[in-house]
């Protein structure tokens, strides 16, 4: 290894090591740092290196707290930092971009880590993760009504509506959308009790949007997102609807019109 390469390797190791559980004694840190770094008038070589190590950790926590601002607010500052430290030990940064740093936080919160309001935080983390994925998604061309108008109606039932990149349709055990909105807008929190809700998160041009769905529309849109043909997706929704059939038809008309107007579909594909 060349001298510069060795120096870089050493410094990187010293910066990330405290957050990845590779601990060294104070004496070891001092001896190691003294080989590469001069002391200042007030700081030892190891203390000078720790400035960068601490800064690195603070930046990672900052990223997580930005991406999961509602989780951070609901958990509280101290618990969020404790969670972030534990999370980063399991899922340290492995890429120069930090866009994906927090992607496994929902999975982490579903695990053994102990924190109060865990089920709520897990739900909110899932929604904020979906928002980040939509935020970072590539821009798709969007399906237009004009393009649909050129299709053969006879083939429509067996075709697939392809959703735009980053679109997420999910069910939650809390009123996740309302809670995220209230926290981010600094409004009074709605009930935090368990209640099943359904929300689609997607990006339209430069804005990430969230829209609550009824249960039948959730099943239809989720089926479309999974790649089911249109008739099969609609059948998924009808199985969950128990009211007046005319109401379901009206709801389908309203929802499909809204979904295409709001840019949720990228294209139509033949089966």
């Amino acid at each position, binding site marked *: 290894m060349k001298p510069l390469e060795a120096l870089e390797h050493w410094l990187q190791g010293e910066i990330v090591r405290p957050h990845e559980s590779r601990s060294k004694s104070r004496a070891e840190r001092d001896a190691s740092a003294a080989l590469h770094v001069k002391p200042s008038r007030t700081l030892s070589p190891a203390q000078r290196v720790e400035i960068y190590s601490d*800064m*690195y950790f603070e*930046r990672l926590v*900052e*990223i997580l707290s*930005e*991406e999961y601002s509602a989780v951070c607010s609901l958990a509280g500052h101290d618990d969020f930092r404790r969670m972030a430290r534990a999370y980063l030990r399991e899922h340290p*940064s492995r890429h*120069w*971009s*930090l*866009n994906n*740093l927090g992607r496994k936080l929902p999975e982490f919160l579903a695990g053994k880590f102990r924190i109060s309001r865990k089920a709520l935080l897990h739900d909110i983390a899932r929604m904020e993760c979906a*928002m*980040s994925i*939509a*935020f*970072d998604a590539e821009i798709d061309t969007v399906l237009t*009504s004009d393009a*649909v*108008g050129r299709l053969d109606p006879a083939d*429509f*039932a067996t075709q697939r509506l392809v959703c735009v990149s980053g679109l997420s349709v999910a069910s939650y055990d809390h009123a996740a*959308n309302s809670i*995220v*909105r209230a926290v*981010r*807008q600094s409004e009074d929190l709605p009930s935090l009790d368990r209640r099943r809700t359904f929300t689609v*998160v997607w*990006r*339209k*041009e*430069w*804005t*990430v*949007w*969230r*829209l*609550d769905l009824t249960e039948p529309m959730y099943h239809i849109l989720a089926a479309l997102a999974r790649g089911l043909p*249109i*008739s099969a997706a*609609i*059948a998924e929704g*009808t*199985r969950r*609807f*128990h009211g007046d*059939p005319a109401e*379901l*038809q009206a709801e*389908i*008309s*309203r*929802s*499909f*019109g*809204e979904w*295409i*107007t*709001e840019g949720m579909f990228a294209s139509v594909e033949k089966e």
Partner: protein
Amino acid sequence: MANVQVNTLVAAAFAALIAGAPLAGCATEKKSSHMEASASGKHACKGMNACKGMGACKSGNNGCAGKNSCKGKGGCASAEKHSCKGMNACKGQGGCSTGNNGCAGKNSCKGQGGCAVPVKH
């Protein structure tokens, strides 16, 4: 719902896709009443004054107008985030080149502004 004909519903969906949303294009108020835009500061230049008011919020963002969600956010460069934020070392890392119409190759994004980036509230 066994008596509901899926074919009828498929036809309704097809017609709706062609027609679009009722009052589409002039329903800003209605739309913003039930849809939520999402914003969080994910900009590389978050907190830099030069980003303010550069315009990301005005792109197809009907719900954003007049809301405080845009405050201090708009139009900042680069959706990539580095661990070296706040350090000179960001220069040449490459984060400024993604989704960044004017910042590519420029120094650290600082004060560049004016580039497109998604917004969340």
